[in-house]
């Protein structure tokens, strides 16, 4: 199909959100910077092609697009789990692998074994690995950080509960707490809304907005429903990448974006 033209990720920043200067270089160091990045699995046709984008500090970004369009690939490039074939990826001013200790990552809940015998606090403590060096056990600082992270996501007091006994929404928040346990500057979330019902989803995103006070938030989603109420920047991924500030989602831009997405959603349903 005829892919959309490459955008250089500079969109008009006229916004209703103060400080939502998402893609425009405001002089501060961008949190994420991709320069002409292409990637294909095993040298096949590229999943991502000629992607250039910047994400500013304290932005709230939603990455949307069809399944197989490259959303997860983009996320893996940011985490250094994949290396680009061409171009460069910089995260927090360094390589993704070096930036990892300062990134909080929340995977898809479905990727985990729901029956794994582990207590909530042990899951959250995994987020403290790599904070210190050495093989030793977790110390009091780590435990305090874990309890604090659980408190932040509204799960204080559930430390000793088995992870498998929690509801989907609670498990999701445990994984968020794990991502927060290392006090990350950048939080990446893969499909956080996938296993939540509407009411829980609302609460979860309010949590992310609060989190956004201190950290840059980037989430992958195929759901556009909440985009306009919470998110400041939308990155549309379908082999190539378009970046829109949500404040610019008016008139022509909305028509363009939603035209595209109506088509993409339709495409998903056929699969």
């Amino acid at each position, binding site marked *: 199909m005829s892919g959309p033209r490459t955008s250089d990720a500079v969109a008009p920043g006229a916004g209703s959100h103060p400080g939502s200067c998402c893609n425009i270089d405001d002089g501060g160091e961008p949190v994420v910077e991709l320069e002409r990045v292409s990637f294909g699995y095993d040298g096949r046709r590229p999943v991502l092609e000629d992607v250039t984008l910047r994400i500013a500090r304290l932005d709230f970004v939603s990455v949307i697009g069809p399944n197989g369009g490259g959303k997860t690939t983009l996320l893996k490039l940011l985490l250094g789990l994949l290396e680009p074939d061409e171009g460069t990826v910089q995260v927090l001013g360094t390589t993704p692998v070096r930036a990892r200790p300062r990134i909080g990552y929340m995977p898809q809940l479905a990727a985990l074994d729901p029956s794994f015998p582990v207590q909530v606090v042990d899951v959250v403590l995994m987020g403290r*690995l790599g904070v210190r060096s050495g093989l030793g056990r977790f110390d009091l600082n780590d435990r305090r950080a874990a309890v604090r992270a659980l408190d932040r996501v509204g799960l204080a007091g559930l430390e000793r509960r088995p992870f498998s006994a929690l509801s989907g929404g609670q498990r999701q928040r445990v994984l968020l707490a*794990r991502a927060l346990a290392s006090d990350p500057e950048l939080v990446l979330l893969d499909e956080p809304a996938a296993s939540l019902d509407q009411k829980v989803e609302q609460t979860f995103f309010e949590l992310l907005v609060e989190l956004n006070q201190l950290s840059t938030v980037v989430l992958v989603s195929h759901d556009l429903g909440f985009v306009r109420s919470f998110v400041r920047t939308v990155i549309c991924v379908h082999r190539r990448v378009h970046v829109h500030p949500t404040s610019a989602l008016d008139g022509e831009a909305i028509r363009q974006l939603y035209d595209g997405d109506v088509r993409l959603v339709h495409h998903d349903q056929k699969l």
Partner: protein
Amino acid sequence: MEFLEALVRHQFLQNALLAGVLAGLACGVVGTFVVVRRITSIAGAIAHCVLAGLGMARWAQVRLGWTWADPMLGATGAAMVAALVIGLVSLRAKEREDTVIGALWAVGMAIGILFISRTPGYNEDLMSYLFGNVLLVRGVDLWMMAALDAVVVTLSLVLFTRLQAVCFDEEFARLRGLNVEVYFLLLLTMAAITVVLLVSVVGIVLVIALLTLPVAIAGQLTSSLRSMMMAAVGISMLCTTAGLAVSYGPDLPAGATTIMVAGMAYLMVIGLRRVLSR
């Protein structure tokens, strides 16, 4: 009762009991990682490759006169090689993993059978390797078992939180800076050592059952990896001890009896939980 009296009188029964307890320790600790990481089929392949090591060592002892070539040494070597081969294949070429597991499973056995067939005493050796003969465990074997136990238990305790993280969510562990490939290979090596310990108690064919059943029972009763592991250790020791005691009077094979005890215990726990949860 008859068993207890005999236990006091016979050194070989004391050795058998101790062997069961020593094997139960590694079995509960490493079996827990094996079950939650879902690599029982890999452990099965390693177990069957152990026959190659046992056969080669026995052959070298009898035909070449290499008295140092203890079968247990051969078993450990073969288990390590199998673990590393499967581990590297699994890490490098994910899609062929099950083919390689199946191939090693069979080839390992074939090598063992060929060597054993060229060694006098063919039948007795093969039967005790396949189905175990814990009554033949010697004092020197017990020391070797204790040493192997010490290795896997120490590693598991020291690296517990890391192994737990790698088993629960490998990708996340990698992002937190853990070298997950190394931990995976380490886990397979520990599984290999545990398999060697268990082979002397229940034999190659029955290893998988003893590695998984006590853990499965423990999983029904506990909710954290740590408590599951401790429960699995206790249950493993109980199973090997009960198997030995039950088999002694009617002169049944101890290995098979142990597995039956473990299997029945598992069914009972599941049944009880069903009834209680109503």
